[in-house]
């Protein structure tokens, strides 16, 4: 303790320390630079490297896109196109098996129609005995919503089904995707498939602000909802037209619905034979503006719109419809304000996405039929259940519904899987999309691990992994 350091020694240690510090600063600085990459200076930027441009050319009255090489943005093992209920479930499920997963989403948030379409009802979730038959990743999402204030209501209250808050759900999905360590690209629209000479899908092409780029993958999960990727790859499908509406959220609604009072005052069925008889035929009763039903957020209702039947793949039709829908929503609001409890109502939000229900249905290895749905046929390759709906009981969904009849290296998930129209009308619903999504994700990961094609996937192992992830298979 007694030894004192000399002046020289002090100078020496200070100098070495300074040098070490200076040396260590350099990587820290570069690290910060890489973390805050867009930090970039405001204002005019130096010109980037020269890029060859191949604009479409008008020749002889025809617009031709010249052949060109696409930049490969990324290489991955499992590519999931679409970040809706099916896509997020697929990507998260695949990521659980520790494969390299890339998720690509057209909008700037995750959740698809469940959040951006304001389809806030988590239905159908239960079987006829009010047992929850859809679990797995969807259940995990709902459990994460459970702990959030105003995240989800009517949980575990079968047969009443839960309603979620769209923003809470977007947050939960963002959190789950960030935690999983997958690559995610938002605002990125899958526009084409990449196939090899053996008619096997090798990735997909995207349009974004970065232009047209490619992502190469071992297996692609088409969770685009419209089946854009399998259609682009040339797989056979059935074209569907369905109602297309626009859901909205109303704020400052102090009663759920003015008609609830009317309902409370009404007596039991048929005890009032003389009163309450409806008019014959199409109603001309006063449609005085509707305010929908409650959401988890206080004072906020969601208002459904069925909409007319339209072609969800026709941009002109979609555009006109969306304009008309918005106009109608405003007119409805003005009528709703005349009702007590809704005088101060306002439109909190119109859904960023229109409620496109069904557009394409894959011609898969197995087409789930209405008869099979209604008779509750059991499948050896079942990958999950849909809940009961009206007088149709809960039914199993076979793996074959996700696999294209001919196309290789691609799995469909969500509302564009292989089923007859009336079955797809149930498969398209949010929790059922979780089911097909999770199964497609695990199957895709198995393809990578076992070096096989989707149609060769070891189904018992797939089912085993689904069970391990908490899914319900009966």
């Amino acid at each position, binding site marked *: 303790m007694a030894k004192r350091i000399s002046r020289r020694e002090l100078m020496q240690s200070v100098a070495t320390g300074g040098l070490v510090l200076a040396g260590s600063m350099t990587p820290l600085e570069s690290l910060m630079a890489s973390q805050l990459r867009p930090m970039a200076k405001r204002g005019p930027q130096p010109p980037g490297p020269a890029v060859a441009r191949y604009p479409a050319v008008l020749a002889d009255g025809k617009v031709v896109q010249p052949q060109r090489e696409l930049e490969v943005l990324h290489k991955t093992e499992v590519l999931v196109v679409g970040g809706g209920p099916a896509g997020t479930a697929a990507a998260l499920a695949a990521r659980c098996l520790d494969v390299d997963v890339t998720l690509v989403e057209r909008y700037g948030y995750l959740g698809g129609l469940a959040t951006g379409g304001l389809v806030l009802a988590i239905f159908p979730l239960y079987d006829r005995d009010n047992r929850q038959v859809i679990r797995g990743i969807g259940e995990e999402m709902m459990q994460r919503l459970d702990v959030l204030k105003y995240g989800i209501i009517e949980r575990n209250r079968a047969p009443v089904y839960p309603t979620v808050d769209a923003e809470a759900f977007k947050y939960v999905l963002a959190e789950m995707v960030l935690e999983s360590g997958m690559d995610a690209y938002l605002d990125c629209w899958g526009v084409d498939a990449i196939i090899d000479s053996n008619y096997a899908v090798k990735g997909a092409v995207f349009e974004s602000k970065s232009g047209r780029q490619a992502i190469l993958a071992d297996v692609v999960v088409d969770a685009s909802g419209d089946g854009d990727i399998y259609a682009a790859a040339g797989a056979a499908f059935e074209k569907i037209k369905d109602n297309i509406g626009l859901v909205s959220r109303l704020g400052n609604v102090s009663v759920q619905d003015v008609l609830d009072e009317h309902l409370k005052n009404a007596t039991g069925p048929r005890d009032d034979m003389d009163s309450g008889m409806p008019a*014959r035929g199409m109603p001309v009763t006063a449609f005085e503006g509707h305010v929908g039903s409650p959401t988890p957020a206080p004072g906020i209702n969601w208002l459904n719109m069925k909409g007319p039947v339209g072609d969800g793949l026709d941009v002109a039709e979609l555009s006109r419809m969306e304009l008309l829908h918005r106009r109608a929503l405003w007119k409805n609001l003005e009528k709703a304000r005349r009702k007590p409890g809704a005088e101060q109502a306002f439109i909190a939000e119109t859904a960023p996405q229109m409620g496109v229900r069904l557009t394409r249905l894959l011609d898969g290895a197995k087409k789930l039929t209405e008869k099979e749905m209604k008779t509750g046929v059991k499948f050896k390759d079942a990958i999950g259940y849909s809940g009961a709906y009206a007088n149709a009981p809960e039914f199993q969904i076979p793996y074959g519904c996700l696999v294209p009849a001919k196309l290789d290296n691609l799995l469909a998930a969500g509302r564009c899987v292989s089923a007859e129209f009336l079955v797809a009308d149930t498969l398209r619903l949010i929790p059922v999309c979780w089911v097909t999504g999770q199964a497609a994700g695990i199957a895709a990961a198995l393809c990578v691990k076992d070096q096989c094609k989707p149609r060769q996937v070891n189904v018992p192992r797939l089912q085993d992994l689904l069970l391990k992830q908490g899914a319900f298979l009966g």
Partner: protein
Amino acid sequence: MMHWRHPPRLPVRLACFVLAILLLWPVPLWISASTIAVQASPFVAICTLLAGWAFGAGIILGLVLSAIAIVRKRWFCRYICPVGLLLDGFSRIGLRKNAWWGKCPSIGGYIVLLTAAGSIAGYPLLLWMDPLAFFSSAFTIRTATDILSGFLSTAGLTFLLLIAITSGDLWCARICPLGATQDFLSGARSLPGSFKDILKSKSHGKARYGIAFSTTRRAFLAVAAGVGLGFLAKRNGRARADRAPLRPPGAIEEDEFAGLCVRCGNCMRACPSKIIRPDTGQAGIAGLLAPTVRYEGEYCLEDCNACTQVCPSGALQNLNLRQKNEYVIGEAQLDPSLCFLVRGVRDCDICVRSCPFDAVQIYWDEDLYVACPVVDQLKCNGCGACEAYCPTGDVKAIRVWKSGTV
């Protein structure tokens, strides 16, 4: 010969009692087994035959038993009637064994005359007083959905048992129309010569079973009253038809339905959906306990015609599956002011999906900018699937109404 004349009573009665229970409870031996259990009554068999709505193996059995009653006085009561056995048993443990009613005239004879005459008018007024119908009805308690209907279904038999306990054989000897029918039949043996004597023969308490008609005039008045009341009741039924509750498939016209129905509860027990419930007063006193249809949770299944197979009186006509599905129970109508889809409460299409006949479609009104389920009345038979599954709560937005009332 002697043996045939006097077969051992108790074993036969017990065997018939067990057989009746087997026919009615819990799973019938065959689909229409419960029909036989009621049609075996000569009273029911003859009156429904007169009313002209039913014929079949059970009716033939009832006629055969009627024929035996011509030869053997009150043969049915002594050997077959399960209610008779029950009442005998109860009257033994009863409070009063002396027949205080000994001098009372037989009411049963008038009941039979009224009902038979009413049958000819198409409205068997008091057919529901048949003891086998009471017996059958008591089994309906098993499927009763509420206390009131459970109580009402057993009320008939309970009443008979109370009579047995308090007043011994009063029912069997003086009131029971089944017994009185046999009295008429055994009297017919001495027809044509002594019809007057039969009607005149008075019971003086010595003979327990006897005909208590004093004069032909009373009999004539009873018949006239039966025909008159029958027509009146039919008119009343017609007048109320548009306010009547829904009836099960195969139900005959409302004006005769309440009269022909014996309230045996067979249809209620046969229904797998348990949608057939006893009328607790919706159609007035005349329709009390007759079957009505209520779609609470279940509907009239498209692959079932069970209720049409079990009616002993023909109030529910025997229909095959195709005919049953074509039978219009009522018509479904939507009250749009309650409909979830119309009101934007949720994206509901449960009525469309649940309809077994594709009768409900969603119509999009471009001007109102609203979607609304619309029922095709040509396809709708009122099976109630839409009403049963409509999720609006206690008051359904879509309901089945009696045809012509909407």
